[in-house]
């Protein structure tokens, strides 16, 4: 009888052993159900005060990755309006040439700090969406200097240095900034007359851990580390700027929190594409009930002759 017990147990053990050694037993794959995604409205409009007259917004919809049938639509009959302190500032029109909604102003976009800007979008098939932004104050640039081969990069190579002194415009609160550098080249003819002016953006890098790169607003940073104080932004570039014909324009952007979050997360998202070891990135959206952003930024310029 005890032997029977052992035989039974050994048989059971053998059956289980063989049953667990079939094809794919050690790599079990199960396709999982993902809840359906109902498309949501998408609106994207980023505005820089004083820098532009023309506003251009993208209007579309989200779709499920899993549904090959779903598509992006760009409706031609959406109603997109921008309000300044409650008063209509811009009524956008659809342009089929650029697949965007556009508004052409007569003046540069207003830079008055504290003004409330509200974007409202009524897109057929979706509930209306609206986003508000408050124009941040103008950043304060106290000084900016350029020195050829003035510093070293993170690898120890000599590079041109651009130092920008900024001052916290709103002490006591967290402010967000971006820093871009532009080179303005003036071409003259033999008579000394200006024949061409070109303006190109120069990429900046920094060894300062406070500054991180984001595409549109260059090096972005917050003033948490220097609230109520001045701060010296030490940056460098690999472009040779030692050109007597050129002028450098330093632009400091004061960003809203949404602008900062979107700029930074979009850059992280782009850097993480195709990197299986990257932490997932959630790109910031401030459109309640949809995706995309509406952001406004204020700017100040400083010219280095």
């Amino acid at each position, binding site marked *: 009888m005890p032997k029977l017990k052992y035989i039974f147990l050994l048989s059971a053990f053998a059956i289980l052993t063989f*049953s667990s050694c079939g094809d794919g037993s050690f790599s079990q*794959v*199960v396709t999982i159900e993902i809840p359906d995604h109902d498309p949501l409205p998408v609106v994207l409009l980023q505005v820089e005060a004083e820098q532009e007259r023309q506003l251009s917004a993208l209007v579309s919809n989200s779709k*499920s990755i899993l549904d*090959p049938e779903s598509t992006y639509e*760009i409706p031609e009959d959406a109603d997109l309006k921008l309000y300044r302190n409650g008063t209509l500032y811009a009524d956008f029109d659809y342009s089929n040439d650029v697949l965007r909604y556009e508004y052409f102003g007569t003046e540069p976009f207003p830079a008055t700090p504290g003004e409330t800007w509200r974007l409202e979008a009524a897109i057929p098939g979706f509930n209306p969406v609206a986003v508000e932004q408050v124009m941040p104050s103008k950043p304060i640039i106290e000084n900016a200097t350029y020195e050829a081969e003035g510093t070293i990069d993170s690898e120890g190579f000599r590079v041109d240095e651009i130092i920008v002194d900024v001052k916290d415009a709103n002490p006591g609160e967290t402010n967000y900034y971006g820093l871009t550098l532009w080179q303005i080249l003036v071409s003259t003819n033999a008579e000394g007359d200006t024949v061409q002016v070109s303006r190109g953006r120069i990429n900046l890098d920094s060894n300062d851990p406070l500054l991180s790169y984001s595409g549109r607003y260059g090096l972005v940073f917050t003033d948490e580390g220097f609230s109520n104080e001045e701060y010296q932004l030490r940056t460098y570039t690999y472009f040779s700027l030692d050109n007597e014909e050129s002028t450098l324009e330093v632009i400091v952007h004061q960003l809203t929190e949404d602008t900062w979050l979107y700029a930074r997360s979009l850059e992280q998202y782009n850097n993480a594409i195709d990197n299986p070891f990257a932490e997932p990135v959630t790109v910031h*959206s401030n459109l309640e009930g949809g*995706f995309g952003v509406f952001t406004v930024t204020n700017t100040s310029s400083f010219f280095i002759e």
Partner: protein
Amino acid sequence: MQKHYSSLLALLLPFSIWAQQFTISGYLEDGSTGEKLIAANVFDARSGAGAVTNTYGFFSLTLPADSVELSFSYIGYQTHSESFLLTENRTLNVTLSPYVELATVEVTAERSERIEQQTQMSRVEVPVEQIKRIPALLGEVDVLKALQLLPGVQSGGEGQNGLYVRGGSPDQNLVLLDGVPVYNVSHLLGIFSVFNADAIKNVTLTKGGFPARYGGRLSSVLEINMKEGNMQEWHGEGSIGLISSKLTLQGPIQKGKTSFLISGRRTYADLIFKPIIKASTPPEESIDVGLYFYDLNAKLQHKVNDQHRIFLSAYTGADVFTNRYEDEFGAFEGGIDWGNLISALRWNWQISPKLFANTTLTYSKYEIDIGAGSENFNEDGPDEKFSALYVSGIEDVGGKIDFDFIPNPKHYVRFGAGWTNHTYRPGALNFELSDGEDFSLDTLLGSQNSYSNEFFLYAEDDFSIGPLKINAGIHASAFAVEDEFYTSLQPRLGLRYLLNNDIALKAGFSTMTQFINLLTSEALTLPTDLWVPSTAQIKPQESWQVALGAAKTIADEYELSAEVYYKEMDNVISFKEGASFLFGLENDWQSKVTQGDGDSYGLELFFQKKRGRTTGWIGYTLSWNNREFAEINSGRRFPFRYDRRHDISIVVNHDFSEKIGLSAAWVYGTGNAITLNTITYPTAAYPGFNGGQPFFGEIETGGEKNAFRMSNYHRLDLSIEFRKKKPKWERKWVVGLYNAYYHRNPYYVIADSEPVRDSQGNIVDERRVFKEISILPIIPSVSYQFKF
């Protein structure tokens, strides 16, 4: 004000009674092995006063000069009684004999101090014999996986042995082996733990309500003490399993005076596969593969006299993966190995009958080496060689002194201090290049070590006021790193109020500070994960936790406890969104991490049967666990990956007879929260060529971080033991079954694509799908265990 003075007087009075009193002190030991008995009871029947032995088996009981009727008890052992007239201080070193006839059925009931007697809450001691009974993956007994079956403790994922305690991450657990921090607790990428159960004496996990003597981590303290070695006679035990074998020997070097213990474990997959690989390799080539892990524990104990004992313990263990290929033209080799070296020199000194000191000097090191090299064989000249070696790790040297002062039965005072010097090696790369003739290069990159010093002081008193027992204390710590000097004062309080029906109401409050951090991905624990210090930029992690609970022992057999807790964590560390957690950390890790806050709260229920033929427990945890980082998820709060709403574990051991025992463990847990990009939306649109379809730049998103839940996890493990016992020898066959009903538990999720077909079966499109991958199907195991 006068009332306050009266209260103060009442508290201090017990220290100042100078009536004729004497102290009985000494050690309680297992009579057969000489092992110290921890938390055993000493009780005087005449006065009703009692004491409990400390971690080193020491007790001290101060009583009025009178007749005493002492009983020394420890469940599973025969009670020892002594009566005498107490007229002077007495030293009693008592040995208790185990109940031989109960050994197989009451192995789980070692403790005698009831749960309602303890001031400490949120603390669980799992007897090693119980751990050995729990069904284990591939028959490898695993201390950490056993702890995952307790309420409030979660596993990270299938087969992983990381501990997620009350919402904390694994780096927030202080894992101490004989008082020395262990930085890497895993073998084989987290599948097995480094602790060899045969060499372990006891395992205690504290999840909250931390007494002041603990510090340095936010979420838990796991104390693992090695056996000390048999003082009386030689013994051994071992096992032969499917993937590893182990052997432990212990015995006296000088009987009753000096003992040793040595225990080793090694896997042998490489030994099995080496001949197979060799047989299938062409004769002009050679392939040498090594893949194994090993552990070696050793301990020496020397009893100088009744007042002084010295212990020297060491552990070393590593995972090794090597690969060498060679043919007539050259050779290539590569490998990775990582492991710990831990050592402690401990000195127990009974300074007086009421004062006991434990002094420990420690050294520990965790290191990972990744190497690669190649050689080109030249017939006409010297060989060309290239090699690269990456080394990273952390090294600690430290010392601490702990005092136990027991002025009378109503007070138990502990105080002490410690210091640790940490050396961090965030990653050094050594290149060697030689053409065998006139050119050679030997260079070291990124070799800058960083250093920090950590200090602590603590004092606590466990005292009683009627039915109220209080443990109050303070832990002060400091951390010097670079030019920063951080300090932290951490108050601790534990309360226990005993109701008339022997139900204990308990409460605990503790604050903790953690100065060192592990850079690790939430999703995966790798040996390359770096330990780094707090710096000027990276602030120390801090937490506070409050817990309330009730506990009761029912009919001497059952233990029931319920606890609710709330924990807040500040400055917890995480990789920034988009940061790569595998490469390039050594240079600029500070720019890749961000700090934020976390909170966790929940309810834990624990019902345990400790005695009889059937033993085991049911544990249930209901919990919430969130994180909030300014730089993650747009600053919005999100569920932590291991936010597990429900977590259930049921463990049952049943002895049909002394010869056959069955064990089962069933676990259930809500699926992990992960980020899954299931939605896309455009960020740019461009007109198509020649009026064709427009094309878009787009973003994939899951909406919110960790918004998706993997499938729920559940699994049943079974094992059956067949035992045979002879007077001087016993053996056990253990047949186990992991994941007995073959549930495909998700390990990770991948995005894949599959074809879309029309009604005729033609592929017309492709669609994205998400697939859960499970790695551990039903896995049988068998092992042979022996003891002599």
